[in-house]
């Protein structure tokens, strides 16, 4: 089949124009695709009826596929970008566009060797190009394939604006974040109900003088403990991560670790102790345990990460390259990984997006469906998906 399906974007770009890929890549790809795709009705261009991500292939590229709303609640209790959630509510349907980076990742995931250590895939790209939604596409695929999804929707939320930090009972040097931990545990429970009774803990955990979890009890008990006793939530999260990592190698389930904004794990935090001294990320128990999770010393699954500047602290706005956002420490920890670039829309995808908005009567402007209108939108948004979405919201 296609040997170059792996990295078509990068091979066809001119050397030395990396930062301006947005406008150049689409022209090159359009030259190839125009020959293959005949003029079709708008519905066929923008939508596909194939709703199983496992069957998505290159022929579906640029088309939106529908996720049933019940699935949405089950798979994505947290993790969808807020603007997308609003769009779903408005249109009363959830449609994700199938794009090349996600297809590439799906291809790798389908061919994962579960005996080998977990491979790390890092999605990176400029602001608003669709990294988080690509991650959601992957999560949907893995959920359909019955993997256990460990999804941290935004790691940046754990390093800034946290109140009520407690000293950890497990390790005096570290700090707990009860609120964030309990919120995450609730969402984790919703996403992975069916696994929580199947997986059994392999150790006894003593919470305090009166409560303890025995060896062999289901993982759901640990999660319940964390949700009800907020003080122990962080430790519960730590236990969940440890158990999942240990047991994924045994083959009962496949584990997908999906972290959005993974560069938060190795940067700085905005949190301070009472004596105004800054807190390093590794002093937070949640971050410490998560770092252990993204190392590749376990097998039986995959690790998909995105880098995000939006929401990051102390990083310049234009930074999007892996080494810039991860820093030396992050890069050394994640090395070796597969970097996957997510870029702006190519003309086909752009056309498809406009058609989708027109079908849902989202674009009310009378000139929106004309060629001139589309060109204007293309120019104003520079084919950036996030920018286009914001512009269309006004029309």
């Amino acid at each position, binding site marked *: 089949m296609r040997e170059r399906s*792996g*990295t078509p974007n*990068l*091979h066809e*770009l001119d*050397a*030395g*124009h*990396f930062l301006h*890929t947005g406008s150049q890549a689409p022209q090159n790809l359009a030259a190839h695709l125009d020959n293959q795709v005949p003029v079709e009705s708008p519905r066929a261009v923008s939508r596909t009826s194939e709703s199983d991500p496992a069957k998505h292939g290159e022929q579906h590229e640029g088309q939106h596929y529908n996720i049933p709303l019940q699935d949405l609640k089950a798979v994505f209790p947290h993790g969808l970008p807020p603007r997308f959630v609003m769009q779903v509510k408005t249109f009363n349907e959830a449609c994700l566009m199938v794009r090349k980076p996600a297809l590439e990742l799906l*291809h*790798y995931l389908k*061919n994962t*060797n579960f*005996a*080998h*250590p977990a*491979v790390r895939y890092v999605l990176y790209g400029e602001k608003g190009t669709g990294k988080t939604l690509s991650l959601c596409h992957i999560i949907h695929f893995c959920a359909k394939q019955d993997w256990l999804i460990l999804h941290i929707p935004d790691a940046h939320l754990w390093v800034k604006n946290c109140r009520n930090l407690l000293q950890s009972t497990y390790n005096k040097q570290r700090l707990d974040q009860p609120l964030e931990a309990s919120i995450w545990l609730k969402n984790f429970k919703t996403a992975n109900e069916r696994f929580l009774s199947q997986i059994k803990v392999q150790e006894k955990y003593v919470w305090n003088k009166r409560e303890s979890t025995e060896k062999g009890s289901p993982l759901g008990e640990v999660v319940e403990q964390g949700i009800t006793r907020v003080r122990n939530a962080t430790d519960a999260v730590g236990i969940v991560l440890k158990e999942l990592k240990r047991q994924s190698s045994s083959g009962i389930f496949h584990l997908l670790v999906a972290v959005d904004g993974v560069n938060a794990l190795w940067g700085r935090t905005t949190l301070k102790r009472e004596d105004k001294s800054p807190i390093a990320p590794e002093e937070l128990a949640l971050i410490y345990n998560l770092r252990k999770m993204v190392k*590749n*010393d376990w*097998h039986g699954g995959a690790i998909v990460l995105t880098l995000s500047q939006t929401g990051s602290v102390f990083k310049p706005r234009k930074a999007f*390259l*892996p*080494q*810039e956002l991860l820093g030396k420490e992050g890069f*050394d*920890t994640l*090395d*070796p*990984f*597969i*970097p*996957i*670039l997510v870029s702006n829309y190519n003309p086909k995808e752009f056309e498809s997006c406009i058609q989708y908005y027109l079908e849902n009567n989202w674009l009310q402007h009378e000139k929106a469906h004309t060629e001139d209108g589309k060109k204007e939108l293309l120019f104003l948004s520079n084919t950036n998906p996030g920018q286009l979405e914001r512009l269309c919201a006004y029309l």
Partner: protein
Amino acid sequence: MAAAVFPAWLALQPGARTLRAFSTAVSPATRAPTPSPRTTERTSKYERPLRRKALPPRTEKMAVDQDWPSVYPVAAPFKPSVVPLPVRMGYPVKSGVPMAKEGNLELLKIPNFLHLTPVAIKKHCEALKGEKGFHTAHSEEQHYILHYLKFCTEWPAALDNDEKCEKHFPVEIETADYVSAGPSVRNPKARVVTLRVKLSSLNLDDHAKKKLIKLVGERYCKTTDVLTIRTDRCPLKRQNYDYAVYLLTVLYHESWKTEEWEKNKTEADMEEYVWENSSSEKNILETLLQIKAAEKNLEVNKEELLGTKEVEDYRKSVVSLKNEGDNESTLSQYKESVKRLLNLT
């Protein structure tokens, strides 16, 4: 002999009458101390060293066709007793004339060009004529230019391009001289000496070069590989030149030595990324070992694993990524090498 000595000895005596024998218009009577001094000044006047009478000015002995440049060879203040011209300067009092030249401060204050008469300039030009065969110049400026040119030699014909100059004379010294019209020829800016040398022309090995660059800091330019040392801490130019050369010598010798504490060089001090013993190497080794263990292939050793071509490619891509930073080509190279290493399609 004795006769010759005698007057000299007598001349040494203050107030000796023999000296007055040489002068023509001196009346002995004027010199004799007055016989009736006032009682208060009696001791001082007698003990005061007898002042000799002022000599007639030199102008009276000057011939009309004398050699004027030897009277005023350099710029000198106006000396009324030497200049035979009856100049007058000053504002006259009522029904009077401007003041005479003797003791005239106005004549002293203004600049004079008595040392640059046409005769003097002609003589200078003749002296400077030399091999150049220049047309004799008469203005002061051209005078100076000729002065400079006379002492220049031809550019050596063998050094006709920059590479040869670099090869034979790798060290460049830059100094500046300043000329200004003023009372003094000194200019404090003239003591600055700049020494430039390319490091490629020095005999340095890898460690020495890195150490030298760290020692000099900002004085080294990476793009042109030039070390610039600018000294001005000594008062004289030649002292600064010696100091600059001394600095270069010391830097060269120190960078070849290895000190005890250089063993403590950490990863943060490294100028460029070195893959051996780095965390990247450890990671890839662990990963490969785990892969091999999963395939039940236990008899592998580290050197074999690290010697394969995929690991070599991976090493190159990581080094270029770290040294050059992220860009499209380094990232794609890294991606390909990782894919091959981990056997992903």
